[in-house]
């Protein structure tokens, strides 16, 4: 009697299951609209943008001139472009603010002095000058300027990447938390495990030469950090399965113990003498996508890969099916031959290991600080819950958690851009979490469950 799902059913399922995606889209559109601002061809903002374009196109070996008139905003443009170019390692041959004849004279002098001019950073007005073509070795095609336009601050590529980068560590740790919550458990220790893993990693690096540590030492230290956190997760899992202590209590204790341990390892200090290679773990990878070059932060790449793997595991494998069954009805699962204890133990160990990975990333970004990850667990739990995973267990989706983490990050970022104070941000975030759970509860009631 199996018939294909009726159409209306498909739509309601889509709305039910991916309603959070709509919420995320709505937030993105709202924040884009609210941060919409005029982008001029002059002023500091334009100066930085032009500098970025030049650095991307010509690289650090370029010789550049900065050309502006003396109107309003031109000075800011010149200063911003100059400093941004120098920061990027580009040689600034000359910075000229003045009338066309002055520009011509100064440019000619610069060409003589440096032998060439590869690009000219100009305001919109200056780029329109015809004199460039009359100078030997220079042409108007070398002018780089930005068109005056309107573009939301929120939707800028760098901001989006920034949001993704900020989400990545939360989202990675939230994978483990999703599994734990699907088994009807909770793990309060992930924040402390981040600190434990970060200081363990940093401490092992320090023992192997600190800032001069080699690749081998870095690999060993990362494994040590990961293992430390995974061992703590395994300990929690053992307490929960073998002695039936409630997960809330076990992980609360582990949260305290791991934090204390992290502080002892470094004597309350933060270890920041770390090698460049280790720093680059949380750096960026240069990608060339359809001719557009940009740096994708490694944590984001890792996040995407881990989510894809976790999604496959939870939907397509025996292990995933068992995790759902254990959370839905542990006794029925056991009587169906599922090794409930084994599954629970694996889930807590995995959650610890993922928190450990988060700790390594945080150490690479910041330092081996025992104060890392304080209150982190609450944000992670919030992401899981906003993503639609039920605290009752047995239900939830991996990608829901990613959406949940993104929703929280987008709200935080959008409010920052709108210059909303952190106290008001807390109020909004609290309300968002409550509303998300409320919608979920009402939805379930509607299903008559």
């Amino acid at each position: 009697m199996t018939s294909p799902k009726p159409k209306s059913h498909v739509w309601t399922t889509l709305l039910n299951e991916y309603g959070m995606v709509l919420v995320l889209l709505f937030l993105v559109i709202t924040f884009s609209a609210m941060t919409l601002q005029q982008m001029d061809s002059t002023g500091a903002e334009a100066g930085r943008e032009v500098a970025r374009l030049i650095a991307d196109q010509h690289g650090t070996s370029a010789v550049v001139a900065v050309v502006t008139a003396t109107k309003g905003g031109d000075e800011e443009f010149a200063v911003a472009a100059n400093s941004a170019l120098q920061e990027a390692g580009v040689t600034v041959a000359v910075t000229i603010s003045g009338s066309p004849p002055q520009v011509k004279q100064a440019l000619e002098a610069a060409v003589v002095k440096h032998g060439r001019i590869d690009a000219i950073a100009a305001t919109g007005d200056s780029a329109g000058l015809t004199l460039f073509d009359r100078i030997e070795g220079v042409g108007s095609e070398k002018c780089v300027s930005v068109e005056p336009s309107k573009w939301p601050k929120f939707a800028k590529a760098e901001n989006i990447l920034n949001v993704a980068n900020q989400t990545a560590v939360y989202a990675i740790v939230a994978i483990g938390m999703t599994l734990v919550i699907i088994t009807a458990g909770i793990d309060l220790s992930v924040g402390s495990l981040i600190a434990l893993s970060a200081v363990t990693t940093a401490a092992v690096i320090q023992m192997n030469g600190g800032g001069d540590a080699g690749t081998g030492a870095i690999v060993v230290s990362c494994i040590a950090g990961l293992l430390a956190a995974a061992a703590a997760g395994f300990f929690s899992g053992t307490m929960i399965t073998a002695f039936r202590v409630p997960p809330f209590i076990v992980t609360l204790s582990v949260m305290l113990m791991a934090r204390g341990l992290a502080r002892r390892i470094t004597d309350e200090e933060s270890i920041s003498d770390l090698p460049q290679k280790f720093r680059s773990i949380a750096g960026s990878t240069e990608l060339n996508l359809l001719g557009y070059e940009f740096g994708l932060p490694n944590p984001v790449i890792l996040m995407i890969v881990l989510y894809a793997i976790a999604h496959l595991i939870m939907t397509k494998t025996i292990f995933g099916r068992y995790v759902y069954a254990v959370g839905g009805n542990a006794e029925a699962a056991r009587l169906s031959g599922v090794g409930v204890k084994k599954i629970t133990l694996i889930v807590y160990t995995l959650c610890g290991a993922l928190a450990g990975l988060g700790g390594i990333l945080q150490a690479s970004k910041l330092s081996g600080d025992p104060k890392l990850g304080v209150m982190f667990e609450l944000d992670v739990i919030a992401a899981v819950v906003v993503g639609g995973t039920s605290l009752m267990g047995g239900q939830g989706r991996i990608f829901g958690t990613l959406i949940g983490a993104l929703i929280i990050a987008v709200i935080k970022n959008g409010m920052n851009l709108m210059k909303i104070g952190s106290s008001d941000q807390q109020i909004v975030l609290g309300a968002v979490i409550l509303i998300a759970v409320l919608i979920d509860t009402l939805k379930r009631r509607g299903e008559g469950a």
Partner: protein
Amino acid sequence: MVNTSPLLQMQGIEKSFPGVRALSGVDLTLQRGEVLALMGENGAGKSTLIKTLGGAHQPDAGTITIEGKLVSLSSPTAAIVAGIGVIYQEFNLIPELNTWENIFLGREKSGFFVDRSHERTRAAELFKQLGVDIPLDVPCRRLSVAQQQLVEIAKALSQDVRILVMDEPSAALTPQEVEKLFTIIRDLQTRGIGIIYISHRLDEIFNIADTITVLRDGQYVGDAPAKEMTREKMIEMMVGRSIENEFPKQAAEIGEPRLVVDGLCRGTAVRNVSFNVRRGEVLGITGLVGAGRTELVRLIFGADRRDAGEISLDGESLKIRSPQDAIHAGICLLTEDRKSQGLVLCRSVRENFGLPNLKQFSWFGAIGQKRERDAFGQYVDSLSIRIPHQEQLARNLSGGNQQKVVLAKWLQQNAKTLIFDEPTRGIDVGTKHEIYQLMNRLAADGTSIIMISSELPEVLGMSDRILVMHEGQLKGEITDVKSATQEHIMETAIG
């Protein structure tokens, strides 16, 4: 003026849920002091109908009048005010509170502090009226099912109900307890209380009911005085076709012993039990509730740890320490309680089916979803499981269909020994019949079957051999089932 209108009249009640028409135009009339048996298969709409009476569901159409006055039962409280008490299959008692605290829960007199002595005295009076002896100060979780039911009845009486609805009150009671319940029901009758009684046990219906109302597929089929009704006629009304033989036992060829159990012990629950089941045999195990039957089979299945005892299958000694081991060895258990032990209610029926069978469909831990769907699809057809699609949540199925999903899950295992613990409890006549026929087929294929049941007609009707348990021990064995009687079994079971 004497009120001549009936105590309760429901007319043209309609109720739809998304995708399901649960009730369409149901009529029901209940007189003062009458016991009305509401009959129908699972999914016929009985539960929905009584939930409308209890104020848990609001009908889409139709009227409800009590003593001629139109009432609106918009909430459980409104139903209580209107004088309707409903005792659901799952009791509404708080396990940690004692009897009188439960009886007066939510209706405590006085201001801030509870008037304990008044409530306690009132509860004692209620129990006395019912002629039962229930300890007052004991938390409800420590009472037996029968006692908890009496607490529910006392609670209803304390609310001055005129209409009492009981959903499957006898499902978990022993025959003696059922007798006692009937005495109380007859007493309530003389006080003018109208009773709506739901049960799948036909014998009881003829024993207690004055009138029988039958529903089928959410529709009113008819009613008749119990005296004019016959068993066959009622089954035909419920099923929509006549069932020739309630217990269609076909004896299979019985071979050598397969499962052999020797000296099984666990505390006082199971004491030194030894028996065997042979190829193609259906072994019935009966006894009073609490005699240790479920505990015994849980030991065989590895659900609980045994203190001592040997288990072997087909001459091979087994080391069973978990259900996983038992399933691997070829022993499967269909648990007594589907909802808490048989199914993961919040997951789909397909996932429930797959749970013990995933390794058959998988390649290095990755599930072949199509193979799983196809395998389940075959059982959906062969067991005629009524589901809109395989992704339906197990929670949303009727009891009979839930039981079929659990059956499908174990059938896929091709077990050597299949243990059925109360396989037909709370299940309608039509599905019962299908389960019996399935047992016949399995036995014919050489499976050895253990069937635990409290329903003696079922045990006598379907078993090749019967074991009777009492206080954790085997008390008797009946090899000549054809000439055995219910009385004979009861005598052994009582000890």
